């Protein structure tokens, strides 16, 4: 018989390394046509980091994503970056980019101020223009300002900066301290069907609501969440490296059971409206936390469906059926 269940799990997750320094540096060059080049030492590992980092640079400079070309992943030409790890790229590298772009932008403000007959601090960069705050009709295109600064004043618009999240070391005896600068939060809810004659669990649906601060690119955040859930489904139900005498016995994709398209549920994703003043434009991060609560939610849903608490992952069909049988045997004795 198929029995249905629902289960929820919430979580918290930090951005960046535990206390340890994990800096990023960045360089932003504004070209004389108003486009820009961003140099970062991080590596695109599939999450869309370079797109997001380009968006952050673009936002700071008041230009579009497409106006920024991102150069990355070459130790000869790109600056130091701790790398694609610890859900830190948007937050840490992003903060470095904001600061670097601000340095470059300041050069534009200083070049434009005399042309617009105002002080540099009265200027903002928006819609590909340097314009006067509160009086946007007075403006010059960023391209023209950059050209003027570089070719007339002789001051190319370029900026470099770095960022490292401020932390406080943890006390060795009590662990008290400030190991991270910020955290994200999330809740996922799973709906499952359990076949109580085979122990098979089918995850029907996952609703995932995540906080990542400001989503720099909501489409890419959704992608992270959906992908993280697929890892969580595997972690919950199927995946396990098995050993015999220290030798892996299933080191291949035939016998290491990760979810296929047929094993993945319908996924509904929403983001919490949140803003972190310490992040770039209020952003925090999204990579790892997406994989955190899925297994817990699924296991709670299994419990809700058939009343058994599986305490060791993965909750394979065999394990679930054994627990159901044990429960029935217990009920038999009680009766």
């Amino acid at each position, binding site marked *: 018989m198929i029995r*249905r269940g*629902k289960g*929820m799990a*919430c979580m918290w997750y*930090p951005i960046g390394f*535990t206390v*340890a320094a994990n800096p990023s540096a960045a360089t932003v060059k504004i070209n*004389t046509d*108003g486009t820009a080049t961003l140099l970062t030492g991080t*590596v695109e590992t*599939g999450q869309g980091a*370079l*797109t997001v980092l380009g968006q952050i640079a673009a*936002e700071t400079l008041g230009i579009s*994503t497409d106006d920024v070309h991102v150069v990355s*992943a*070459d*130790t000869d030409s790109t600056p130091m970056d701790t*790398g694609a790890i610890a859900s830190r790229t948007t937050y840490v590298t992003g903060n470095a980019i904001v600061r670097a772009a601000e340095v470059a932008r300041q050069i534009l403000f200083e070049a434009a101020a005399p042309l617009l007959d105002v002080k540099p601090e009265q200027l903002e960069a928006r819609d590909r223009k340097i314009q006067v705050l509160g009086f946007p009709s007075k403006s010059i295109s960023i391209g*023209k300002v950059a050209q003027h600064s570089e070719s007339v004043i002789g001051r190319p618009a370029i900026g470099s900066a770095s960022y490292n999240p401020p932390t406080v070391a*943890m006390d060795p*005896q009590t*662990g008290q301290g400030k*190991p991270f600068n910020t955290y994200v*939060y999330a*809740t996922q*809810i799973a*709906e499952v069907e359990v076949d109580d004659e085979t122990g098979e669990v089918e995850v029907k*649906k996952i*609703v995932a609501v*995540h906080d990542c601060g400001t*989503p720099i*690119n*909501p489409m890419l955040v959704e992608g992270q969440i959906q992908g*993280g859930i697929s*890892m969580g489904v595997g972690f919950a139900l199927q995946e*396990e490296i098995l*050993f015999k*005498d220290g*030798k*892996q016995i299933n*080191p*291949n*994709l035939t016998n290491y059971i990760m979810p296929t398209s047929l094993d993945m549920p319908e996924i*509904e994703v929403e983001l*919490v409206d949140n*803003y*972190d*003043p310490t992040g770039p434009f209020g*952003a925090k991060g999204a990579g*790892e936390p997406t*994989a955190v*609560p899925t297994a*817990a*939610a699924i*296991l*709670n849903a299994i419990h809700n469906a058939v009343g058994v608490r599986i*305490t060791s*992952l*993965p909750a394979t069909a065999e394990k679930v059926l054994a627990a159901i049988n044990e429960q029935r045997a217990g009920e038999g004795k009680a009766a």
Partner: protein
Amino acid sequence: MATTVKDVKKGAKNLTTDKDLTAPAVKPLTLPKDNPVIYPLTLPESEARRQTPAVGQRASRPDGRLHGLGQTKYIDDLTFPHMIFAKVLRSEHAHARIISIDTSEAEAMPGVLATLTGKEIPVNSFGPTLQDQPVLADSVVRHRGDGVAAVAAVTEQIAADALEKIKVEYEVLPAVFDSLEALKDEIKVHPPHSNIYTSKVIKKGDVEKALAASDHVFHRQFRTQMVEHVPLEPHSSVALWDGNGRVTIYTSLGRITLGREDVARTLGMAQSKIRLVGTIVGGNFGGKNEITNEPILALLSKKTGRPVKCTFTRGDEFISSTIRHPFIMDYTSGVNKEGKILARKIRLVLDGGAYCSWTGTTIGKGSILAPGPYNIDNLLVEAYAVYTNKTTTGAMRGFGAPQVCFAYESQMDDIAEKLGMDPLEIRLRNAFSEGSSSPTSQVLQSVAVRESLIQASERFGWKEWTQ
């Protein structure tokens, strides 16, 4: 690449106005009808990529288009003139002393250009926290994934055949596979050091007193398994040693600037003599945050004067790259009648595998996050990471968080069930809010756990949902 063509054409005239930016950069080229590799040379960028403000836009990815065209070049797609291929021989034992390694027969094979053993590596150790891992094991193997020798040959098949000709004599040592066994230190993985190579304590309030004062005390042990990242792209790198004594390494590594430090250290070289280049990593999830073959390929390239490539087989990927830490988690929670958690006592044992790798970060995050996103005044978390003679556990998406979340959220439902409360209610009653104090007494800001609980419950229809 469409952007390159456009940029070149743009450079020809001085673009300073906004209008020019939106104008098509080049006329479409006409290609002969039978042109073999055909893809559109000019395509409009999506609207979202051209919008200001840029933040918040559902901007498509420039690399996304190349992925779809099959034009993205991953490391294994790169070839260089005269390139040869390396393979690594892995240990036959989980724990053994290496008596001798004889590569002579392999070297004599036609097509084999060089071999390498650990003794030839200038500084044969690496690791992000403890440098306890050899690039190629030279005295002791501590798990089956340890490399013991490498071969470079003109084809992958010859390199694979040559591995079978390498004779390694081992003295088998007793091995420990279970983390609780390893905790006893009867069999040591890195003697004379204890197997417990890192630990963490988080203490707040008085947990014993609060447990004694609780209306209900819940205890359970939870366990999680070893899992693999399974990036679809196996690790891959190519090293090119040049005439200036400089080496360029194309690599699937996800952290190249720190990776260069590691490579420089193992090779005993100046960082300025080493260039690491990434393309796009075909899936990382934490598994590509450590150097693997890079120093080996550099030295084989130095020996042969040839570019040397090594791409992991799927088996190598499982056996020799890092994987997720299994946790054994004892959770004891004291709760009052109203469902307020008064105390939580947690003991975590992390199976650290044969080497430290990113265990430091995993035990740190695992311990701090272990109590869950809840206001609990009395806490004790004790966490230990132990060496075992199994695959090295390292960084993986979530660094211990998925493990502890499974435990604390399972226990939250146990508590709710016992008290007859709705799982949503028990969480809302205890969840952090803005300004809450974390287990390490950090004042939390931009907290959104309640919001996520409420929003998810509404979206799911939690209250209305029935079996």
